[in-house]
Structure formats: C-alpha cells, structure tokens
C-alpha cells in the first residue's frame, strides 16, 4: 500500500524515525521488563498440544530491549506522515483567563484520523501482526478510542477486527461504534453472552456497566477460540508505550524551536500510554541534561490506581487468563463507577509507569469528574477545542499548575497531552451542562474487596494483606 504524505519536508523531519525506549534509562526495573505467566492451572491449552506466541516476537523483543532507540518501520512512519507531526500549541487565551505567569503548551493528538493518540500504536501493531501472518485482530476498548484506532489500522492492513466495547461506553458513545463499523469491525457490547468471561461477569452482576478488564477477557477468549486471530491491546504493555513516544519526541523538537523546555509534563492515565508517550522523551532529556522537570499522571477518583492502589502482581483481565504484570492496581476484578472518561476506568497502571511511580520518578493526582468537565469546558471556551473527557483530566491538572504558579508568582512552563478531541463525547458534556452529573469516587470498601482477590505474590502473602 502506498501513502502520499502531504506535509512539508521541514514538517516531516519533526516526525521521529525511531521510538524512544525508556527502559534504557531506568534502573532496578526487572519487574517492569518481564511478564509473569499465569499459573499452570489457569492456562488454557489448545487441544492438539500445539503452542504459538500471543504477540509477534518483534514486539516482545521491543518490550524487553534496553536499546535507547528502536527504528520505526518505514511503512509505519509513512502512515504516520498522513497526520503527523501533530500540532504543539500555546494556550494563550487560557493563560490570560487564569491571569497566570505560566506558559501553557499542549500537544494536540486529536488531529489523528481517529481523533486520538491511539493510532500511533495501532498502526505499528497491525503492521507487525500482518507480518506474522495473522488474519484477525480482536481487542477490548473502554471509551472506544482504541477500538476506533485498531479498526482503522486493521483495515489498512487487510485484517478482520472484532472489538469488545465496554457496555457503558457502548451506550454513551454510539458514534464510536459507528466509526468502528465504518472500518469494517464487528463491535460487541461487553459483557456479552457470547463468551464464558462475559457470562461470568453478568452472573456476578446482571446490571454491570462493564470494565476494560472484562472486555479484554472476552477478547482473549475470542482470540483463543479462533485460528490466526490475536488479541491486540492499546495501553499498558511496554511496546505500546514505546510506540507512543513519537508524541513526546515531536513535542521536544517543537519546543526546542521555541527555546522552551517544560517544568512540568502532564498526561491523563488509564493505563498510561498517552502520559508515557509525551513524558518519556522528556524524562530522557531530564536524565541527559539534569533538568528538574516534574511528571504528573492524572487519574479519575473513580479509578485511582496510582493514588489509592497497591504495587503488586496482577492480571490484566477480569478472569485472570492473561499474564500477570507488576503494577499499581485496584485489583483485576475492580469495576470502576461508570464515569464518562471510559478510557481511564482501567484497574491498573502500565508496569513501566508503575515502576517509575514506585521509584518516585513521577507524581500522580486524582480528580472527581465534575472538576474535570469544568476544566474541559473552560478550555473549549478559551481555545476552541473540545477535549475528550480523558484528556480533560490533563487540562484540569494543567489549570491547577497554572493557578499555583500565579499564587507563587513565578513563571513556569507547563506541557500537557491533549490526547484526543471530545466531539464524539458530547453526551458527556451534555450530562455535565444539565447539572445531572455526579462525582463517583471509588469507595474504600470497593477497593478493599477487589484487592482481596489479587493473586498470591512472590512471598506467598496476599497483596491486600501486605498493603494494609
């Protein structure tokens, strides 16, 4: 397939030729660089005894690599050039409104064909799966941004695509489903009655709004049942975070051209791919140059994995059939209240983000959804861009940083990731404007109950017991 980039040569040079690998700059992160297999009793083996990898070797090698930079296949980069580099903008009107000495910049990933950063890894993964001979990709999607991106990437590479979409988002964001279907994908609301994982979740709670871990479990089961069909995930895995570093590398070059460097870098965290995509290349610069930049991960109070979770081995899916990873987690059976930022309802943070949080290399903050939407609307009024509810979390944190700068009376350069637009999320804004929106923080009881169901840890103790 040929592509015809339309950018100028100068603009194209901003788009990196390599992904940046943060593992090369981290110490004592062995747990983040390995996956731990499911316990033997829980492994579903094919009847004929045959065995095949779940992900392409190339992506697995990327996940473990300590090389600082990994080449982007030219074919993938050519696809990137259809919309990259994405704009780096200064929010001057917002600055004026806040009367702050801070300079606020944002990297706008909403100009991607599917409206968010997710396409950066979707295209790379579809490329590698196609090379491996896969014919269908399946996945779970929260808000639908990942499903939209994967369905387009699958279409580009001639792959079939089945998306299990979390029920609450399926109902709240019908046009996301339409976008996936336009790309030829089959979209199934999750939990569904078509898989054992879905039926188990429905048996536990017939009224459940679903969760990404349930959707992932259904997609995993779907992939296991079919030949040449594989599960592709859009957040959390090391290779996913790697692919997203095009965002930060571009932003670094765009800020360099303005002779700026951020004092604080901010991104919303579901599992961590948009945060990492922006933050990691700046972390590399921080290490290289000794600057004092801070990195702030923003999460919803409804799924506060970093601020209220525990650092433990846990599964990535509801039924515990995917490999365990070491992560900040609320427990794989945690079902977040049905907030509008569906992409942030996931129970755990990426292993790399978790390791960096554990080592205090990054910070985290949690917000209730009404304050997030208040900031989203202010941003839309001032900058004329409607943020996705997920991205509005980063806006909220950026606004608060700018207000702090005003109180302290000092200049500060703030950079945040506006990871997607909210034009397919207007029902969420309508809900806020109508005054019907409520804040739905996770309760202590909810978190304790799901942490009690964590798998046994290395020392044989339950993680919940250790965290108390």
């Amino acid at each position, binding site marked *: 397939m040929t592509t015809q980039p339309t950018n100028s040569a100068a603009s194209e040079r901003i788009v990196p030729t390599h992904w940046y690998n943060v593992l090369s700059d981290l110490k004592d992160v062995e747990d983040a660089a390995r996956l731990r297999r499911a316990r033997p009793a829980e492994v579903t083996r094919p009847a004929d005894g045959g065995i*095949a*990898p*779940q992900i392409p*070797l190339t992506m697995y090698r990327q996940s473990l690599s300590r090389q600082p930079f990994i080449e982007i296949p030219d074919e993938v980069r050519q696809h990137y050039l259809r919309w990259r580099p994405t704009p780096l903008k200064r929010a001057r009107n917002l600055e004026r409104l806040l009367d702050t000495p801070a300079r606020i910049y944002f990297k706008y990933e909403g100009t991607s064909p599917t409206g968010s950063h997710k396409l950066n890894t979707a295209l790379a993964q579809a490329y*590698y799966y196609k*090379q*491996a*001979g896969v014919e269908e990709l399946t996945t779970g999607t929260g808000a639908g941004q990942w499903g939209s991106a994967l369905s387009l990437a699958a279409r580009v590479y001639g792959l079939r695509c089945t998306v299990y979409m979390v029920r609450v988002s399926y109902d709240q964001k019908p046009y996301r489903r339409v976008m996936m279907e336009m790309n030829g994908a089959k979209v199934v609301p999750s939990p569904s009655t078509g898989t054992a994982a879905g039926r188990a979740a429905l048996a536990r709670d017939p009224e459940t709004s679903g969760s990404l871990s349930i959707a992932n479990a259904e997609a995993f089961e779907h992939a296991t049942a079919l030949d040449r069909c594989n599960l592709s995930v859009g957040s959390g895995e090391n290779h996913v975070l790697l692919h997203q570093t095009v965002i930060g590398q571009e932003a670094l070059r765009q800020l360099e051209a303005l002779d700026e460097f951020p004092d604080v870098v901010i991104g919303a965290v579901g599992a961590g791919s948009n945060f990492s995509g922006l933050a990691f290349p700046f972390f590399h610069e921080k290490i290289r140059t000794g600057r004092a930049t801070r990195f702030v991960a923003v999460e919803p109070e409804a799924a506060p994995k970093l601020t209220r979770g525990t650092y433990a081995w846990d599964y990535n899916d509801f039924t515990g059939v995917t490999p365990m990873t070491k992560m900040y987690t609320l427990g794989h059976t945690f079902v977040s209240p049905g907030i509008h930022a569906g992409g942030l309802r996931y129970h755990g943070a990426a292993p790399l983000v978790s390791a960096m949080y554990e080592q205090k290399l990054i910070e985290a903050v949690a917000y209730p959804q009404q304050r997030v939407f208040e900031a989203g609307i202010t941003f839309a009024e001032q900058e004329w861009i409607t943020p996705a509810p997920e991205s509005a979390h980063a806006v909220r944190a950026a606004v608060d940083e700018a207000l702090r700068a005003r109180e302290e009376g000092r200049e500060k350069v703030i950079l945040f990731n506006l990871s997607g637009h909210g034009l397919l999320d207007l029902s969420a804004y309508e809900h806020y404007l109508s005054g019907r929106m409520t804040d739905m923080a996770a309760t202590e009881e909810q978190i304790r109950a799901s942490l009690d169901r964590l798998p046994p840890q290395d020392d044989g103790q339950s993680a919940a017991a250790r965290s108390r």
Partner: protein
Amino acid sequence: MKQVLVVVKGLATTPDKIGDDQLLTSQEIGLDSLSLLEVIVRLESEFEVLIPDSEVFHAQLQTVEDLTELVAQQVEHEGMESGT
C-alpha cells in the same frame, strides 16, 4: 537447546532427560505462549539468529524437536545468506 529450556523454565531436570518427542506443554516442561517467547528470544541470542515472526507465529510447535528444527532452519538459512 534443551539447556535453554531448563534454564528459562527453571526445570528440576537435566537436558539429557528431556526427550525430542516430549510435548512442550507437558507437565515436565510446561511452556505456555508467554514462556515460549522467552525461550525463543534466549535461543536467538544463543545461536545469534533472528527468527522472523512469519516463521514462528503460526508454526503450532508441539514437541521439543519442532522447536529444535525451527532454530536449526534459521541457523542454516542465515548461514547460507552470509555465505558461510
């Protein structure tokens, strides 16, 4: 090859006690889709080859011999390509 299996999987046996026709998913070896990746990457490093995704992904490896053949074919292929 069997030594790599023993090391990566932490098996309580010795390489000479692993049969060529033994199933990779057997109780004694216990490979799954994830540890298969670990073993292959270790074998690649050991034999200085890179096995293409297309070769391994849907090979449906069943026995120790299947795995040995996969690596041997790649060693031979890369040897021919480099003219050695």
